[in-house]
């Protein structure tokens, strides 16, 4: 399903959630609970590995995937749709004559699997004629038969649909009672059952879970014809249904009284707040454009990190593989060699696929590499990128960092973003401490509009809640706020980062890349951070 079809399905258009891609066929809810047994998967994998070897492959990996998704879509007092989808099949990637080849099939018969393996080898051999240099693959030691699972408490697929519907309709009713004119709320639940095998001797079975509960609350003033939307402040997470428990200990009260959430989310409380804040936005003071010090909450900053650090430090973009679509990167290899100052000395940004509860967390990536954590920017200096096995040698690395991912058994795995996070400040500092020193600033909470150029220099970000800060105190809510930035100047203006007690996650459930397009899910952690002298514009316009 394309993003545009999704919009149609949810019945929400302009000004609403913009989300891409989901694939698969519709299945019954009970079918979401079944699994293919490991012995069968190993048997299928061995058929593919043997067929590929016999056909002349020097390397082969096999991914047997069962991708389950459930969507519960509501507005106000209505359930608009409940959809369960499943997509399963086998993707086979080979190296023959120094060249990659790939083929995939949903037919899980021995003949079809062997045929697909031979087809992958044939494609590799055909493409080898125009291959300039043979593939250079960083070594991976086979791990034998192992497994990994997202450490969930409650499997979302086991929660009855009725409970999910009741939850969302309860959230909607609470928002409407609190004065909302409209609310759209959604549950997205994902379970990737992935089995990886390779000629390196690995047989890796993984069970990956993700959850997202976005909503949009709208307030309308018919008299003035004005409307304002306040989106939910939840984060998509690599967790089970326990994320929606709304534990009091995960609730954070920010300066000015806004409530944000850590490792669990109180959707109803946020909906009530959203209704009140959407109304407040209708009459909030429009921002005076100019230079401000920005105080950015993690619910906002994740997207800035994603766009201005995560993407430019993907090595395939740096090299030019994404030049026709997603673009290249300003953070070129010569800058890396010259120890480019990406940010101030307050800025240490690391990549990982291991932080608990994150969207990127897995035991092994989609080419069998054990996941890890590494620095991208250390004390402001660019020190590394994100690579996969056939790129590691370009940086002189002896092993891949484990950034390989495919969004389906039928897609070729390629380099995707790991979790990319801003390390918390080393000195004790809370958001309440941080605000005290800001004379003329804006506090931004929640992610909003976002756009960045194809080399990741020039970006513009909006948000959900904006508060004016004068002489260390919040004075009033603001509207029509967006800041424009040039990536290196922005990160060099980072004056302070709150400590680890304030560290929270945001993330993207549907990060798009590649042609044909693939999606991936990725988290970004940070504590509240301060950026001095940002250029703020006013986005209000008149249509006459």
């Amino acid at each position: 399903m394309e993003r545009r079809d999704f919009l149609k399905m949810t019945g929400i258009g302009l000004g609403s959630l913009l989300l891409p891609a989901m694939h698969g066929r519709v299945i019954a809810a009970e079918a979401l609970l079944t699994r293919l047994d490991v012995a069968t998967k190993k048997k299928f994998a061995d058929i593919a590995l043997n067929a590929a070897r016999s056909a002349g492959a020097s390397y082969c990996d096999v991914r047997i995937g069962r991708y389950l998704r459930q969507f519960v879509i509501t507005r106000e007092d209505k359930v608009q749709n409940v959809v369960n989808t499943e997509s399963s099949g086998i993707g086979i990637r080979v190296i023959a004559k120094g060249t990659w080849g790939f083929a995939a099939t949903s037919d899980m018969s021995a003949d079809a699997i062997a045929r697909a393996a031979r087809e992958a080898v044939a494609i590799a051999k055909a493409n080898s004629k125009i291959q300039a240099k043979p593939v250079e693959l960083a070594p991976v030691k086979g791990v034998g038969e192992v497994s990994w699972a997202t450490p969930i408490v409650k499997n979302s697929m086991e929660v009855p649909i009725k409970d999910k519907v009741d939850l969302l309709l309860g959230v909607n009713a609470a928002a409407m009672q609190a004065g909302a004119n409209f609310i759209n709320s959604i549950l997205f639940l994902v379970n990737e059952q992935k089995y990886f095998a390779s000629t390196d001797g690995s047989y890796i079975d993984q069970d990956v879970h993700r959850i997202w509960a976005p909503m949009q609350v709208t307030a309308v003033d018919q008299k003035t014809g004005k409307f304002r939307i306040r989106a939910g402040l939840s984060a998509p997470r690599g967790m089970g249904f326990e994320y929606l428990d709304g534990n009091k200990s995960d609730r954070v009260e920010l300066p000015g009284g806004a409530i944000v959430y850590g490792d669990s989310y109180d959707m109803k409380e946020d909906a009530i707040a959203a209704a009140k804040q959407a109304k407040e936005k209708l009459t909030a003071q429009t921002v005076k454009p100019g230079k401000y010090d920005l105080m950015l909450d993690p619910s906002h900053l994740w997207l800035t990190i994603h766009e201005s650090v995560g993407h430019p430090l993907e090595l395939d973009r740096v090299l030019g593989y994404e030049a026709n679509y997603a673009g290249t990167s300003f953070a070129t290899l010569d800058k890396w060699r010259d120890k480019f100052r990406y940010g101030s000395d307050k800025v240490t940004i690391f990549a990982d696929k291991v932080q608990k509860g994150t969207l990127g967390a897995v035991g092994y990536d989609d080419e069998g590499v054990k996941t890890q954590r590494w620095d991208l920017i250390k004390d402001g200096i660019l020190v590394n990128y994100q690579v996969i096995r056939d790129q590691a040698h370009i940086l002189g690395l002896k092993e891949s960092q484990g950034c390989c991912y495919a969004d389906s058994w039928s897609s070729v795995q390629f380099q995707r973003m790991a979790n990319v996070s801003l390390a918390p400040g080393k000195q004790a500092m809370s958001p309440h401490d941080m605000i005290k020193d800001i004379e003329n600033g804006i506090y931004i909470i929640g992610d909003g509009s976002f756009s960045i150029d194809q080399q990741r220099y020039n970006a513009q970000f909006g948000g959900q809640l904006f508060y004016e800060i004068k002489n260390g105190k919040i004075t009033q809510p603001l509207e029509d706020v967006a800041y424009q930035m040039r990536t290196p100047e922005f990160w060099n203006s980072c004056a302070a980062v709150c400590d680890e007690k304030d560290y929270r996650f945001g993330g993207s459930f549907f990060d798009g890349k590649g042609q044909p397009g693939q999606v991936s899910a990725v988290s970004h952690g940070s504590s509240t951070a301060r950026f001095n002298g940002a250029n703020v514009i006013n986005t209000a316009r008149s249509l006459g």
Partner: protein
Amino acid sequence: MSIYTEEQAKAILDKAIKASKADQCSATLNGGFNGNIRYALNSVSTSGRVSDCDLAVEVAFGKRVGTATTNSFDDASIEAVVRRAEELARLAPENPEFMPTIDKQAYKASSTFSEKTAAITPEYRASVAAACIEPCRKDKLVAAGFFTDSQAFSAIANSKGNFGYQKTSGIDFTCTVRTEDGHGSGWVARNLGDVSKFDAKSEIQTAIGKARGSVDAKALEPGKYTVIMEPAASAGLISFMMFGFDARQSDEGRSFLSKKGGGNKLGEKLFDERVTMYADPWDEQAAVLPWDNDGLARERTPIITKGKVEYLQYSRYWAQKQGKKAIGQPGNLIMVGGDKSTMDLVKGTKKGVLVTRTWYIRLVDPQTVLLTGLTRDGTFYIEDGEIKYPIKNFRFNESPAIMLNNIEEIGKPVRVADDESPFVMMIPPLKIRDFTFTSLSDAV
């Protein structure tokens, strides 16, 4: 086997409809082939071909709806998919906005299929890549591109006797050419139903010319400029605006087409007199299926006529609630223009900016459809009717609702596609005054 004939498709759909014991049943069968080749750094990176075919069955008991799909079409599988849909329908909550399946429709076939496109081979795809890579290699340039082709069929039927079948095909080509030092970048795109009108060797020259011509770009101050937007550049803004044409959202007060005090702006003149857009499934250059996602027959539908809003998209539910007739939702968007090419518009421009491509367009404010995004891969300064020099890319903050009031001149429409748009579009090059650039980008 992924391309079924009309008879084969009808037999499968009939079996599904007949197997259903629900109050009503509708079924769709879609299948086809999709081939692609991707290249970067003057070398092929991936290529492949995917075939797929799915039967989707939707049934209803009262206001309870269930949907299930399968990719097996033997009798037992068809029976099973219908039973599963029925089971889901019985478990589903009642949908208060349920609408009965559509009555029998009369579909007039449109020209959406080309035998030549359907006959594209892996060798042809490789030749497209080679046609782009070879001149670039010779000229110290670097090509990165993507060519994709499809052939498919779509068949629909329901328990009220409705049936439709049609084949479709198409190609989409994009290529970015960069200078080796990364100081210049040019782009070309072509979207067609019939591949025989496509010539990669000739198309690539556009991207090569722009890559060479965009080296050593100068910086202009951000501000309001007269711009010449190539069709692909303005298509992204215009199609974004169409999300706001939803009748329900407009009536609910949350669209730029909502009226102060309630209701919507249908019938109001909101754009320049010269702005006329319509949908037409039978348009020769931009034909689409003669039915929409609900199976409703599409018609030639005026959307904006001489600046006046003539169409809002009513879902069947909202149409019934508002006492309106639901019509098939548009699959294409055709903007009326003149005969002038982009370069003709440049010739008539004293001072301005030529924009090849726009990028990363996102909604800033739904109230005014304010969009932000950037220019990319070929932005030039125009003076006295000539392209004078390349300029650095700009970020814009502009509303298409304002842009379409600032029209200076409209050229000849060409077919364009945008990967974030639901429409096949015919969009002319546009000359627009006071287009708002808010900052410079160093990106090449």
